[in-house]
């Protein structure tokens, strides 16, 4: 019962306390305006390069933008505590680490889901792309799974934040990596073979592919494999992230780097 409380209440309080984007002056430009302009940028580059349809870029970039809240906010659950000088207090509590850290991941994934959904709806309306009516509900599910998978990568990012100072630098680099590898803008089959293989193992690749299929009218059954792969990748990253958090927590105590800021 105590763990359930830590998971839900602790996660919510952490989100409200550390998620500095909750200020509308930050939330609106960062999460509602920026994804629209990312979509427009790549739609127009796509038109200029004569490569893919507008719908390809709208879906790809809407889902890929979930990486911003999922990566940055997860890292902030560590860096933010450090800035508030509360990280030490959190880590000496007897609370179980699994609900403590995964509870912080839940609001992050929920926000990532909302941001990607908003970007898809607003981006489609602005650019004028069509989504098959049968695809709406399954695409919402795909976005939820993709946001969860990306939050798994965010947990790894947060773990590194326990021993590294510049979490914003790493978050930006991971975001850039996903921009290249996830197939958001460059069809995966156009990537060099090595990048193609890496692409198969990163969050969002399968989610984006599934959403594109659904938008073009494919059935839910035809994307179950992609959806399953995205969920499995998310689980694997979340498990690795949690293990890394435990490992780096020990390391940061041993090396006295917890308060490195």
């Amino acid at each position, binding site marked *: 019962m105590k763990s359930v409380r830590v998971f839900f209440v602790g996660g919510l309080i952490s989100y409200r306390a550390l998620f500095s984007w909750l*200020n509308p*002056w*930050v939330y609106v*430009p*960062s999460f509602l*305006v*920026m994804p629209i*302009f*990312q979509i*427009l*940028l*790549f739609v*127009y*580059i*796509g*038109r*200029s*390069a*004569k*490569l893919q349809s507008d719908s390809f870029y709208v879906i790809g970039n809407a889902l890929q933008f979930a990486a911003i809240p999922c990566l940055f906010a997860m890292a902030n659950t560590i860096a933010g505590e450090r800035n508030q000088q509360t990280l030490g207090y959190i880590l000496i509590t007897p609370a179980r680490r699994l609900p403590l850290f995964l509870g912080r991941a839940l609001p992050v994934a929920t926000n990532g889901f909302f941001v990607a959904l908003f970007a898809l709806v607003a981006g489609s309306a602005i650019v004028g792309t069509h989504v098959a009516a049968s695809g709406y509900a399954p695409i919402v599910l795909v976005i939820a799974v993709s946001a969860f998978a990306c939050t798994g990568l965010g947990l790894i990012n947060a773990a590194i934040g326990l021993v590294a100072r*510049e979490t*914003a*630098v790493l978050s*930006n*680099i991971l*975001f*850039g*990596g996903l*921009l*290249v590898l996830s197939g958001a*803008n*460059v*069809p995966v089959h*156009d*990537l060099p073979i090595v990048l193609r293989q890496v692409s198969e193992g990163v969050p969002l690749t399968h989610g984006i592919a599934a959403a594109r299929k659904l938008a073009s009218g494919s059935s839910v059954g035809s994307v179950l494999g992609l959806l399953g792969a995205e969920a499995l990748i998310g689980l694997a990253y979340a498990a690795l992230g949690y293990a890394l958090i435990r490992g780096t927590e020990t390391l940061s105590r041993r090396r006295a780097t917890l308060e490195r800021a």
Partner: protein
Amino acid sequence: MRVARVLAYGWFFRMKMLMRSSFNSWLGVLYPLFFATVAFFMFKAGADSKPLLYSSLGAAVMGVWSNTATPAGSALAQERWHGTLELEVAAPVNFALILLPLTIAMSTIGIYSMAATLLWGWAVFGIPLQITDPVAFVLAVPATVASIGALGFVLAVAFVRFRQAWALGNMLEYPVWLISGFLVPLSLFPGWVRPISWLLAPTWGIRAIRGAALAGPSYGDIGMALGVGAAYVVLGLLLVQRALHAARAKGTLSLT
């Protein structure tokens, strides 16, 4: 002479400080490379007939703006966090002379990003760097950097009373990339976008650089970049006095 010394020393010390930050140095070089890579893949796989150097130059100048937009937005907030804003405002030197070299130093860091992007395009994607008019190119790069720095100056001044100004600066990164014609010809946009593009110094900067590299002399565009940049400086000078007066009158300079 005194003004020139303040600007030169200001630029030099700000450069040194910015280079100590991995966010402003390493990330400033690396981050635009991801966008450049995506653009190179897209143009390589696509059916567009423009030479890849067209996109390589555009992606290179994207880095200059990228290095200016967010840091300029948060320039005054940083001074607040360091506890130096009030001291700088109270100094006998005009505050604009302290702020302008800071934003120009930010855009100067973008030269590293430009060089890295052009090298990346050459080494990984085989994009040759052939410059038709080297003299114009050498003049166009600093003109572009200075004019983008001047745009950053206006942003920094305009956002003086916003606590979360970095988010507003960050938000402007994509729109300027988009409508300045870095990777997309302006002719693809609706007609009402073009007058907005003409007001942006990066539009003239990329035209000057691209013109020197691909077509020949582009001195007219260099002049436009410098002219628009000078207009930004004048606008910033006017704004800075009003913004500081308002912040002092309302006691909001040190918004924390």
